[in-house]
């Protein structure tokens, strides 16, 4: 793969994602203060002693942001990996097996997709206790419907190709067909979709936390930090905008990379798929 073929926008995206991942992994090492440490006065402005100022309780905003990166990215990534695995597994099975399995799964999927995600999440979270793993599970299951739809469309496109029929007629088992015939040909669109799902998970998680239904204090993801500081807006305090900008920044970076992935001609005749 030619490095020069990657456009500048994709480089920026990759750099942003790398930075966020770095913060997430090495948070305790690079954060100047603790996550809950009160270090100064409430809502100190940017610059000065604390790089990004302090939040509504006097905690260092930069440190909160770095720890927030850890929470946001890990929860969003966990939810995405889970939803993706579930969605891809179910959709590929539906595409390959066909018949009633396909019909049943697709109808179920349609039903779940006919309720808007946020509303569905609100209803479910109103009932379930507020645990982290429940939150991840809810996000994963709801998001898997979108992955299912794309995965099925992509898999069906491949399934009707003659080389899949040739493999079937050879006597190959279902697992071989899914993993060795279909999957390698769907990597490009699936990878792009993974990116999109991750960006969505970040935004969705932040929204839930902002509404008070996501990550519960004292842990905080970026959405939660926005919620903590939102009252300052009326007084002209921009503290809530900083975690908001972080969320937006990460989402933009992921979208830039996804855009690049989608732009590469993923034609079926591409052979090695690096064209």
């Amino acid at each position, binding site marked *: 793969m030619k490095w020069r073929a990657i456009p500048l926008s994709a480089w920026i995206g990759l750099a942003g994602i790398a930075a966020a991942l770095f913060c997430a992994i090495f948070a305790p090492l690079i954060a100047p203060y603790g996550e809950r440490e009160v270090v100064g006065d409430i809502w100190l402005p940017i610059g000065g002693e604390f790089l990004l100022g302090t939040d509504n309780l006097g905690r260092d905003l930069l440190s909160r942001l770095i720890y927030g990166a850890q929470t946001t990215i890990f929860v969003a990534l966990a939810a995405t990996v889970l939803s993706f695995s579930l969605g891809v597994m179910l959709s590929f099975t539906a595409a390959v097996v066909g018949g009633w399995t396909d019909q049943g799964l697709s109808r179920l999927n349609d039903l779940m997709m*006919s309720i808007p995600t946020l509303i569905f999440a609100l209803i479910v979270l109103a009932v*379930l206790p507020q645990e982290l793993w429940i939150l991840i599970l809810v996000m994963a299951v709801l998001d898997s419907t979108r992955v299912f739809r794309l995965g099925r469309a992509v898999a069906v496109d491949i399934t009707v190709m003659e080389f899949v029929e040739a493999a079937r007629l050879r006597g190959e088992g279902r697992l071989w067909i899914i993993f060795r015939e279909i999957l390698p040909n769907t990597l490009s669109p699936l990878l792009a979709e993974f990116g999109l799902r991750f960006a*969505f998970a970040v935004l969705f998680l932040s929204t839930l936390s902002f509404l008070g*239904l996501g990550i519960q204090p004292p842990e905080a993801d970026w959405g939660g930090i926005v919620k903590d500081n939102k009252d300052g*807006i009326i007084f002209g305090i921009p503290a*809530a905008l900083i975690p908001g900008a972080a969320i937006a920044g990460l*989402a933009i970076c*992921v*979208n830039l990379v996804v855009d690049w992935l989608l732009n590469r001609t993923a034609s079926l005749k591409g052979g090695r798929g690096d064209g």
Partner: protein
Amino acid sequence: MVQDSGPAEKGRQPQGSLAAGLSGPPPANDGGAPKPGGAGLSGLRHRMPLATLLIQRLGLSALLLLAVSVVVFLGIEALPGDFAQTYLGQSATPQAVANIRAELGLDRPAVTRYFEWLGGVVQGDFGNSWASGNSVTEQIGLRLGNTLFLAFWAALVSVPLAVGLGMLAVHFRNRWPDRLINVVSLGAISLPEFFVGYILILFVAVQGGWVTFPSTVYADMPFGQRLEAIILPCATLVLVVLAHMMRMTRAAILNVMSSPYIETAELKGLDTLRIIARHAAPNAVAPIITVVALNLAYLVVGVVVVEVVFVYPGMGQYMVDAVTVRDMPVVQACGLIFAAVYILLNMSADILSILANPRLRHPR
């Protein structure tokens, strides 16, 4: 917030049109006799495909709505754990839990409660709130209007803008206006609504002082004042929805523009305006309608966050407050209504696409 439903935004034609360049694709059938319209239902489907499809869609949506009502109401029963326990929290005594269960009516069988609730809903009665004891229907009556008002104006502004910008982007395809629109819209779809909202509040309301915050509206408010009050929340909604819609309309139009009949029109020496207006537009109507409807459906949901940010007295605010305190009748009622609007919009998109298809309007 990233769009989580709707067609993929890829506007590029799928590569590898296998028959292109190879001589001798499978011969087309020239047996031109149309299939005879048989007797009975299948004949009906053949002679009036349009009507049959429309009825099918309506029926399907009704069924879907019913299924959703089941999910919304009975889903609670299916979820693990004891609801009464969760409602009171970990430290509740068994006696308190039993009391609350009786008070909330949770000791009665679920199916009975479902049909009671459904019966009430059909007559317009959503029960009473557990938190305040007030009639849910009454609150909804006040708030639904507010939400729809906000959503309506956001739609009115964003739809023409999105379609117009999409066309512009296609006209200047790959030149700087298109690239600029692409970059800006990419940024816009990555912004969470609350971020946009707070930026607007900070700079327009607080520092600029042009609009008041929060956006309070009340009954009998004069129309002009009401419009003024929703300027900021409306703008927030528009900004996010516009970006999504525009990218999708651009993709839909590009798809149409790369069709072979557009090339034929060019080879007939027709001018660009005629090609776009007479050849591209009629075929772009269906995909664009689908795009718009999908985004409008999203709008009705995006309204939730915006209402919380701007403390706007609508359905979204109502539902979020209820979820926080686990006020189930409110949650269920709001959930059902949101889902119903969503389903209605999706169904309309479906139906309009069907109507726009010439194969169905003029069967063989």
